[in-house]
């Protein structure tokens, strides 16, 4: 068994029976906020001296987080980390043998593209004087990638779920580069970032075209004549789903159905400030 298969197997074991319903970063932040608040309450009730009486207002000294600006280097390192998340997913899916035929061939091409993108963003990081990041984004890996792969492994149709996950991940990758454009100070760097971002969007579109060849461009949200509109609810996959690149969470449904027949829905979101790969975190 390869290391990746072992990794995937350990993920499956570790997350067996876990409920990832309604998984989203904001829910985690809310949960984290509640935990922090409870921790602060406990700290306030404690004290350096054991007087035997609980007192409010004697919380121990805390270390403030450093006030670190998000620089072009930070954005490039985070982009590289996201490319490594994608590489991890495609390698895990390939090692598990979830895809075959044309789908496996396309996934192999996408994997090669992500490796090239990781090299490109790492090179740009170096050119700006930064230290390239060489691993998957740790927060996104634990929050989204590993739980999602565990669900794919448990799915009734792992091939379909692999493509659904890839569609969401590629859409998210394109959205991330788009999200970074107004945050990047140097115009030429914005163009280079979008050179990669537009290719991520094409990856997603190819999967959309394969999964929904009968309606390549969605009519949702457009003022079209009735004869050009789709009937029924929007489908989860399109080559072209909207007139603009999205910044909304990207939903993906994965894994086996539970007793009531519903499956787990995961919302993937672009890396926010607490998912950035700041240089000061290196070595921590």
């Amino acid at each position, binding site marked *: 068994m390869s290391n990746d298969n072992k990794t995937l197997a350990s993920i499956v074991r570790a997350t067996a029976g876990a409920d990832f319903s309604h998984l989203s970063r904001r829910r985690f932040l809310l949960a984290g906020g509640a935990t922090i608040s409870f921790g602060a309450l406990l700290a306030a009730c404690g004290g350096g001296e054991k007087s035997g009486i609980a007192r409010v207002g004697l919380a121990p000294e805390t270390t403030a987080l450093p006030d670190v600006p998000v620089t072009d280097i930070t954005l490039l390192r985070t982009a590289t980390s996201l490319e490594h998340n994608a590489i991890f997913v495609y390698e895990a899916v390939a090692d598990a043998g979830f895809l075959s035929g044309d789908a496996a*061939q*396309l996934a192999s091409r996408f994997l090669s593209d992500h490796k090239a993108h990781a090299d490109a963003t790492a090179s740009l990081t170096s050119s700006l004087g930064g230290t390239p990041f060489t691993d998957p984004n740790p927060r996104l890996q634990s929050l989204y990638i590993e739980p999602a792969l565990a669900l794919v492994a448990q799915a009734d149709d792992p091939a379909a779920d692999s493509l659904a996950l890839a569609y969401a991940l590629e859409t998210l990758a394109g959205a991330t580069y788009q999200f970074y454009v107004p945050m990047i100070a140097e115009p030429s760097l914005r163009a280079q970032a979008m050179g990669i971002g537009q290719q991520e969007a094409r990856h997603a579109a190819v999967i959309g075209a394969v999964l929904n060849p009968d309606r390549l461009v969605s009519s949702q949200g457009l003022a079209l004549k009735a004869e050009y509109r789709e009937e029924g609810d929007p489908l989860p996959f399109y080559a072209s789903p909207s*007139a603009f690149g999205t910044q909304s969470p990207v939903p993906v449904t994965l894994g086996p159905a539970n007793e009531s027949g519903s499956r787990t829905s995961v919302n993937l979101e672009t890396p926010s400030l607490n998912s950035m790969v700041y240089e000061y975190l290196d070595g921590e």
Partner: protein
Amino acid sequence: MTTSPPRRPTDADIELLAYAQQAELAARDLYNAALENGSAGDQPGSIAALAAHHDAASQAISSMIGRNAPQARLETLFTSFKPSFSGSEFATSAHQLENTLVATHGSLLENLEGTEGAALVASVMIAEARHVVALAALAGISPASNTDAYLTIPADVVALSPEA
């Protein structure tokens, strides 16, 4: 110490965004012409949606630059693609048009200083990169045997430029 880029479009940005709006209007009119002459194949709904996407992009640019928006199509772009936007050539010609627009937006991004204009162009670029894929599929190109037609901008595609 670095200076933060401006948020709103500069005077130079406005010229570039005005040009982008003209290109979007030309694309909209090309798709509408294909619908009228019956060249949209078996997915007229998708082609109508593509026309609407380009119209939405032109309107978004217009909202950003106000009365500086030309509100007129780029005639050179329209006339160069119009003859091939019909019959069996339609999908491959539209595929080339969308690749041209993606390359053009990439070129504009290299020069736009204001972050709002850059963000809008990036958003349109993502959508139009996906258009390329939709049209490659509509042209009947196999994603497995000719993946590059889906994922890369052909070497012969040249970005449009206001100076050209």
